[in-house]
């Protein structure tokens, strides 16, 4: 090893976990929320993390680029400077290893937040999420609790192709022992992430990269330090009598746009933001369907075994089935790995037109097209 190599690569690398002096000085948070009321989802998440790190010293963040890089998507911006390298831990590229490490730390009384650069990478760690985190409290007869949060962007972004675009809501939603939430707007981001961090069980928080940059007005209540959104409760974003749309994450926004357009034709849609994939608020969906008699579910993930499939089951497993005036329509991503080329990528993701078409079909009572033949 040459002297030059040593000089270049050794200087500046002084932040080993144990060697850093205790207690970095506390700077004021870089993006103050106290004056702002129009807040991007990214900053809403950042503020939730900041407040919970301050509130409880057992909370820490573990993941790639969360520290010095300020977060791959800047969600953890400023936290490294404020809380130090031992609470905001930059890891090597070792998903399985650091996820299991976070789970093991959670077994013993810490409250780690394990960030995945995207949930696609979490597939490398899925054994630790499912078998160590989700199942342990049950397997050990209740002796050990696992207060861990797994968070990161989920679903498609733009032109990032097949291995960076999958939605994992249905996979994690299937697992008993996990809670799964999917925020839509900045209010959801704050309330759901804070609830997830304070929950004593493993919670998967499926964020959305496109939504990180979208801003929403927030009330004082939402900006307050103890603002929490209960896990397991959906939100009715817009009331209506003619049809029910159920969605989560980014596509809630699409549904609201479709609802506005249809309103100009005299069709009033009820838009339900699931907020939680598991436990899913079946009650709110069923009550709404009993009112409107028509249902459209909207998700970005693959059609087979998806969130829409589960919602369909919860309808025919309840008396809401007798209230349907038409078969339910599912809007999903296409049954293909996400393509790269812009035009077919657009086909593979649900669009405003897809959702509008589904609404019209359900209003006409049309039989839905079999998903395997779609796209």
């Amino acid at each position, binding site marked *: 090893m040459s002297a030059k190599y040593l000089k270049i690569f050794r200087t500046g690398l002084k932040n*080993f976990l144990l060697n850093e002096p205790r207690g970095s000085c506390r700077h004021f948070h870089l993006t103050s929320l106290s004056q702002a009321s129009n807040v991007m989802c990214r900053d809403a998440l950042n503020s939730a993390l900041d407040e919970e790190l301050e509130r409880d010293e057992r909370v820490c963040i573990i993941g790639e680029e969360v520290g010095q890089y300020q977060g791959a998507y800047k969600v953890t911006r400023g936290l490294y400077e404020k809380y130090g390298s031992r609470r905001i831990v930059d890891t090597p590229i070792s998903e399985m290893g650091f996820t299991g*490490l976070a789970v*093991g730390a959670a*077994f*013993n009384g810490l409250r780690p937040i394990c960030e995945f650069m995207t949930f696609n990478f979490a597939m490398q760690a899925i054994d630790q999420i499912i078998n160590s985190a989700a199942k342990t*409290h*049950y397997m050990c007869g209740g002796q*050990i609790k696992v207060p861990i949060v797994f968070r990161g962007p989920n679903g498609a972004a733009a032109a990032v192709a097949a291995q960076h675009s999958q939605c994992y809501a249905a996979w994690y939603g299937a697992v008993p022992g996990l809670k799964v939430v999917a925020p839509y707007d900045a209010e959801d981001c704050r309330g759901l992430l804070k609830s997830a961090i304070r929950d004593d*069980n493993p919670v998967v928080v499926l964020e959305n990269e496109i939504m990180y940059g979208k801003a929403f007005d927030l009330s004082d209540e939402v900006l307050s330090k103890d603002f929490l959104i209960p896990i397991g409760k959906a939100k009715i974003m817009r009331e209506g009598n003619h049809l029910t749309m159920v969605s989560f994450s980014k596509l809630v926004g699409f549904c609201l746009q479709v609802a506005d357009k249809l309103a100009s034709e005299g069709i009033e849609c009820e838009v339900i933001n699931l907020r939680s994939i598991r436990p899913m608020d079946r009650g709110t969906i069923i009550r709404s369907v009993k009112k409107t008699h028509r249902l459209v579910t909207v998700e970005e993930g693959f059609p087979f075994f998806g969130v829409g499939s589960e919602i369909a089951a919860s309808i025919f497993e309840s008396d809401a089935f007798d209230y349907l005036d038409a078969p339910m329509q599912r809007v999903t991503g296409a049954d293909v790995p996400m393509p790269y080329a812009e035009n077919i990528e657009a086909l593979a993701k649900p669009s405003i037109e897809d959702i509008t078409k589904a609404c019209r079909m359900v209003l006409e009572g049309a039989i839905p097209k079999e998903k395997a033949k779609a796209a």
Partner: protein
Amino acid sequence: MLQKSTITSNALITNEEAKIFYEDMFLGRIFEDTCAKMYYQGKMFGFVHLYTGQEAVSTGIIKNLKPYDYVCSNYRDHVHALSKGIPPKELMAELFGKETGCSKGRGGSMHIFSSKYNFLGGFAFIAEGIPIALGAAFRNIYQKQILHKIDDLPVSICFIGDGATNNGQFFECLNMASLWKLPIIFVVENNQWAIGMANQRASSVQEIYKKADAFNIPGVEVDGMNILEVIKISREAIARARSGQGPTLIEALTYRFRGHSLADPDELRSIEEKNFWIARDPIINFVNYIKNHNLISDDEIKKIEKKVKLRIEEAVKFAIDSPEPNLHDLSKYLFY
């Protein structure tokens, strides 16, 4: 750097310690023998992986720990659990699937957990427990340095087999343990077989302790059938970890006298090989040592053995008499 040890000193353990070590090894042996009997009587079921023959490693390492230290094991976890202090009654009841088991009958043989004794499982997947053990070490450093909640630094022991040392998680965790100087000891129980896969056919580098070199971790090889050697090395490694100097990898050369699990026909290992190792039974070795150094009298040994056998009998009776979980409690323990 730790040197490969040779035991000659008889000042290594006291008479009292000899009794503790002997009782623990004998307990492990009789417990596993009893499991085999119970399994063939249909009292326990599923996957059961017995530890017979490897007792020197479990006792030799775990009996040098403090109660606040952590042990994380794999599916061959019964004897690790006993050494750590989980009562044989609770363990047997767990294996019988009873409500009084240490995991309330929800876990079974491969998922032994005890919050009270800092025993973190019990994992079915190979290498799955390595990051968990590392997480315990991370938590301990965090508790000491950031939360200032503890004075002594607890040590985390991670038990794995030879097969696990070819898994990605092993390497990821060696790297992080070394990088962050976490207080962990990786104990590789190299019994040379991963079900039917011989280590020679699976590992490009046969000497597992050398794999630690790539991560700047001291690696040492030890005769896993000689408890004195195991004790000496483990005390050094524990002191190292507790003083903040970081991880150690101990490769204990050992052998399982039984098949991989009670369902394994164990046809690939030759009779000659098995006999070679059975002749090096660690409990017989230790008894010889005890007698040569007059550490425990013959009467005392008999007393210890009788006590252990009684404890096991009581454990079986307790397990048989205990109730199964209530049917209405299927979904209990899903969430805290």
